[in-house]
C-alpha cells in the first residue's frame, strides 16, 4: 500500500506599514487588518506555520518587520517564518532574535547566491528557506525579485536546484501568475520542480478551494501549501478590526461584516484532506 502523504498547512501574511495586505499577482494591494490579530486567530484554529512577508522591504531597502515579529511570536506556539528584505547576516540575526524560527530569502539570494551558504553555516539548513517567485511568459518560466517587481532571466528549476546545492532547507515556490486569483495552483510547475529537487517544497499561489490543495498534493511531491486569500478573505470578518489609517481600505469598508457566523476553515480544510487520504496535523 502506498504511504499516505502528510502536508503542512501554512498561511502567508503580507505586511506593509504594519497592516496585513493582499493583492492579485502580488499587486493591487488591499488593506485587510492587523496581522497580529489574524495570526492569533489562525493559531487558535490550528494553522501549522505562519509566514510573514514584508512586502516592500527590498523595494524600499528597509527591514521593518522586527517589531511585528516580536509581538506575533509572543503568543504563537507554532513555527514562524519571516521574509522580506533580509539581505545580510545582521538582518537574519535580528529576525531570529525577535522570535522568527525560520527566514525566507528571495532577492538577496538572486543578487548573491553564496549568501544562502553563509546563512546555512550560521543558522543551519532547517532554518533557511529560499523563496522563489516564478512568472510565466509565453509558456516559459522566469523568476522575479522585489516581490514580483523585477524579472530575472533565470530558470526557476535550475535556480531551485542551485539553491538546494547551496544548502537551503526548503523552497517556497510562488506562481505569480496564479497568485491571488483563487483559480488553483499551477500544477505543472510543482510537478516539474518536485522531480528536480529533494528538499521540502511549499506551493504558494492560486489556492481558492479545498480541492485545489488536494490536486496539487496528488500531482506532485510537495510538503506544504501556503494559503493567503483563501483564508484572509474569510477570516477578516472574525478578526478584531483595528483602526486603519493608511492604504486602500475601500474593500474593508464595503465588505466587513462582523455578524457573520464563524467557521473554522483551517480545521475544515484538514478534515477534507484527511477524508481524501492526505494526512495533516
Amino acid at each position, binding site marked *: 500500500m502506498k504511504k499516505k502523504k*502528510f502536508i*503542512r498547512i501554512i498561511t502567508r501574511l503580507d505586511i506593509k506599514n504594519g497592516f496585513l495586505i493582499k493583492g492579485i499577482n502580488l499587486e493591487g494591494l488591499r488593506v485587510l487588518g492587523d496581522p497580529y490579530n489574524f495570526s492569533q486567530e489562525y*493559531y487558535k484554529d*490550528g494553522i*501549522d506555520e505562519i509566514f510573514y512577508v514584508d512586502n516592500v522591504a527590498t523595494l524600499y531597502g528597509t527591514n521593518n518587520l522586527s517589531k511585528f515579529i*516580536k509581538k506575533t*511570536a*509572543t*503568543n504563537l*506556539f*507554532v*513555527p514562524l517564518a519571516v521574509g522580506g528584505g533580509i539581505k545580510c547576516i545582521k538582518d537574519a*540575526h535580528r529576525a*531570529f*532574535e*525577535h*522570535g522568527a*524560527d525560520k527566514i525566507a530569502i528571495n532577492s538577496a539570494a538572486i543578487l548573491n547566491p553564496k549568501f544562502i551558504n553563509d546563512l546555512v553555516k550560521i*543558522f*543551519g*539548513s*532547517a*532554518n533557511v528557506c529560499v523563496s522563489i517567485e516564478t512568472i510565466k511568459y509565453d509558456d516559459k518560466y522566469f523568476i522575479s525579485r522585489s516581490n514580483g517587481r523585477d524579472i530575472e532571466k533565470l530558470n526557476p528549476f535550475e535556480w531551485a536546484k542551485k539553491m538546494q546545492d547551496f544548502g537551503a*532547507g*526548503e523552497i517556497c515556490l510562488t506562481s505569480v501568475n496564479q497568485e491571488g486569483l483563487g483559480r488553483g495552483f499551477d500544477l505543472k510547475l510543482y510537478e516539474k520542480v518536485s522531480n528536480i529537487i529533494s528538499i*521540502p517544497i511549499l506551493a504558494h499561489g492560486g489556492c481558492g478551494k479545498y480541492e485545489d490543495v488536494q490536486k496539487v498534493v496528488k500531482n506532485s511531491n510537495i*510538503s506544504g501549501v501556503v494559503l493567503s486569500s483563501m483564508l484572509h478573505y474569510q477570516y477578516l470578518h472574525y478578526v478584531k478590526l483595528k483602526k486603519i489609517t493608511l492604504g486602500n481600505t475601500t474593500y474593508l469598508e464595503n465588505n466587513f461584516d462582523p455578524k457573520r457566523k464563524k467557521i473554522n476553515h483551517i480545521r475544515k480544510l484538514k478534515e477534507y484532506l484527511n477524508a481524501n487520504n492526505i494526512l495533516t*496535523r
Partner: protein
Amino acid sequence: MKIKKKIGIIDLGSHNLFSIFQAVKNLKHYVKIINKSEQINKFDIIILPGVGTFGNAMKILNSLGMAKELKKFSKNSNKKIIGICLGMQLLLSEGTEFGKHKGLGIIEGSVIKLDKVKLNIGWKQLKINKDKSYNFLNKNLQKNYFYFVHSFYCSPKDKNIIKAKFEINDTLYCGMFIKDNIIGLQFHPEKSGKAGLIILKNILK
C-alpha cells in the same frame, strides 16, 4: 494550588530563546535567561535549549563553566534539567556532529546522524511508552503532532529511559527520555501548538 517554579533557560548564544521563554512564561512560571554559571543553582529547573552544532554548544558550555555546574545540578534530585532538541543531545556522553565531541555525560549514550533523511523537519506523531509515574504519557497524546527540526538523534544506552519515539521511513528513534530528574525532548514543545504546551506544563511540574 499551582506551585510556581523558578526556571532558568541557558543562553548558548543561539537565536531561538524567545519562543521557549514565552512558552514557559505563558505557563505562569518565573523564568529567566541565564548566561553565567553561578546563576544555575538559584533555579529549580534548568532548560537547555539549542539550535546550532554539538561541538560549538559544548565549547560554550565549557568555556562559561556551565558544563561543570550542570553536572553538579543534575545530581540534586530536587532539581530538574530539561534538554530540548540540541539541548537534549548535549546531555549525552558523546556527539558525532562534525567530528567526535564529549557531551555533558549526564545520560550515558551517544548522538548519531539520522540515516534515513538528511534533515527531519516538520510535524510527527509520538509513539508513547506508557509509564505509570508520568500520567501525561498516555494514548491521548499519541493523536497529536509535534514539531521536529534536527539531523541528529539521541541513542541512550539504557533503552528503558526512552518514553516516546518517532518514526522516519519505518525506523523508530528516541523522541523523549526521562531518567529521574533529567528530561530530554527531541521535538520543540514551544513550537508544537497546544499539545506541546501540555507536555511542557507536565514536565515543569
